[in-house]
């Protein structure tokens, strides 16, 4: 069922309340429903996009600038899946080494995650050499609100309430008693057994920080709430030519031919040898004739002999020419953090201030990744690669910006370095969970939604165990 506000609703029969209706919240609700568990989803925004709703997402960015916080995420039914890019892939195994749960804990949910995202469950990789894999992403077109609106409307177990802002949780003795919500300008108390905060990579921190401000004894001051915030720098790293014929010859039957761009990712061996973070590079999805011509012209200028050699291949479509974009990992840094601002929203909840500085390690990663890849290409005649001079000189990189907000309520074993445990339960609080990319320990290079959905499914299983096992 979908309702427009919290008025006149009897919430007694709902053992679980989920705050946020993005991929994390909806996935958990769907999985709970399969287990015949009733749950309430509280969404702050309305059914569709509205500028008034987006105003609540305003925030200040101190340091290196990224896209404005009121436009990089969506406060509406379906959350930020309303404008996400759709690139999906599970995180690489080695990116999860610092996590308290392992790849196999998440892989159990991979097939079902692909079903939810309407993608082929196929993430092949093909070893190019000791340092690189050719990899494959899948592209999801799922907007959670569009896909699940009718399903939720007709569901007896899921009740979605729109236009209802969570303010904070109230609890005592390690137990959350109720959530304070504002619906139709009236303050309401939502009482249930289990509370799941799933409002996104910034909002989760904001609401937990506000909860701590409102009742100090409830959320431990030692928990690093808001800290270790991460992003995925998406940069123009260089340009190049890939000789597809030679690449196919090298990879043989393992060459990944699919409708999409060429993707290559760093193996753990490269990360260890060069002491860099993980990264992936991406080369043009669509043949852009202008860029194609420009790169051929450039190669004829810098390498006339090679240029002549490949010139006749241009028409045979054996070449892939284009800009090289990179997805870079960013290391978790305590000083990249979300704090509460003095300025407040219409409901009196403080807006956020995000302290953010791009990581020098990400810049080094871009350089050494491309340098190694460039050398591989020229020595094995797979093509020729150029690195942008600012990256080659380790000066700076311009973040073209993707909106992958991660960290802030990170997962871990130790209380002083993490906020939630591996089951996403807040340390020392019996019935408060935090779901979404805010719980990521490291960011890897992969787009986060696939992992968010896997974690949300696992959470549903953990709630089920606590309710019935």
């Amino acid at each position, binding site marked *: 069922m979908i309702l427009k506000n919290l008025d006149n609703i009897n919430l007694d029969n709902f053992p679980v309340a989920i705050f946020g209706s993005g991929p994390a919240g909806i996935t958990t609700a769907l999985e709970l429903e399969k287990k015949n568990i009733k749950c309430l989803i509280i969404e702050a925004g309305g059914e569709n996009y509205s500028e008034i709703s987006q105003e609540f997402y305003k925030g200040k960015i101190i340091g290196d600038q990224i896209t404005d916080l009121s436009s990089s995420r969506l406060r509406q039914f379906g959350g930020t899946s309303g404008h996400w890019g759709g690139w999906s892939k599970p995180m690489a195994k080695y990116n999860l080494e610092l996590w308290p749960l392992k790849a196999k804990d998440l892989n159990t949910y991979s097939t079902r995650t692909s079903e939810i995202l309407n993608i082929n469950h196929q993430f092949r990789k093909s070893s190019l050499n000791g340092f690189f894999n050719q990899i494959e992403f899948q592209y999801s077109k799922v907007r959670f609100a569009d896909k699940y609106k009718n399903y939720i409307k007709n569901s007896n177990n899921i009740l979605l309430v729109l236009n209802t802002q969570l303010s904070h949780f109230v609890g005592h003795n390690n137990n959350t008693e109720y959530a304070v919500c504002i619906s139709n300008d009236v303050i309401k108390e939502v009482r249930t057994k289990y509370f799941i905060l799933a409002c996104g990579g910034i909002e989760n921190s904001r609401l937990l920080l506000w909860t701590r401000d409102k009742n100090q004894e409830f959320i431990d001051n030692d928990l690093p709430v808001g800290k270790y915030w991460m992003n995925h720098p998406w940069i123009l790293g260089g340009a190049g030519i890939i000789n597809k014929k030679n690449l196919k010859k090298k990879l043989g039957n393992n060459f990944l031919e699919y409708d999409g761009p060429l993707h290559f990712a760093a193996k753990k061996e490269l990360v260890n040898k060069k002491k860099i973070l993980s990264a992936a590079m991406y080369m043009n999805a669509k043949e852009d004739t202008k860029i194609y011509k420009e790169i051929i012209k450039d190669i004829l200028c810098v390498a006339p002999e090679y240029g002549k050699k490949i010139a006749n291949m241009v028409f045979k479509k054996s070449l892939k020419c284009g800009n090289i974009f990179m997805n870079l990992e960013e290391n978790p840094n305590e000083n990249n953090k979300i704090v509460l601002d003095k300025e407040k929203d219409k409901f009196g909840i403080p807006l956020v201030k995000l302290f953010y500085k791009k990581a020098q390690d990400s810049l080094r990663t871009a350089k050494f990744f491309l340098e190694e890849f460039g050398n591989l290409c*020229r020595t094995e005649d797979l093509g020729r690669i*150029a690195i942008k001079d600012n990256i080659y000189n380790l000066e700076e990189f311009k973040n073209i910006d993707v909106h992958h907000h991660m960290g802030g309520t990170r997962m871990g074993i130790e209380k002083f370095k993490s906020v939630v445990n591996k089951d996403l339960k807040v340390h020392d609080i019996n019935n408060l969970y935090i779901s979404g990319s805010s719980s990521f320990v490291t960011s890897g290079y992969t787009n986060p939604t696939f992992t968010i959905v896997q974690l949300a499914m696992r959470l549903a299983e953990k709630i089920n165990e606590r309710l019935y096992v």
Partner: protein
Amino acid sequence: MKIKIKVNKFRRNFLKTFFSSLPILFLMKFDLFFFKHNKLKLKKNKNFIWYLNSDD
């Protein structure tokens, strides 16, 4: 007689030097044959640094 001994000594030295330097010559050729092709050459064009082979 003295001249004959000198010529023999010269010939011996020449042959000794010639044969002892052969492996070095061989190695030099080997080196040129295999590594020159893959030698890195960096070249800047506009804002890009190209990773090229020396014979590109």
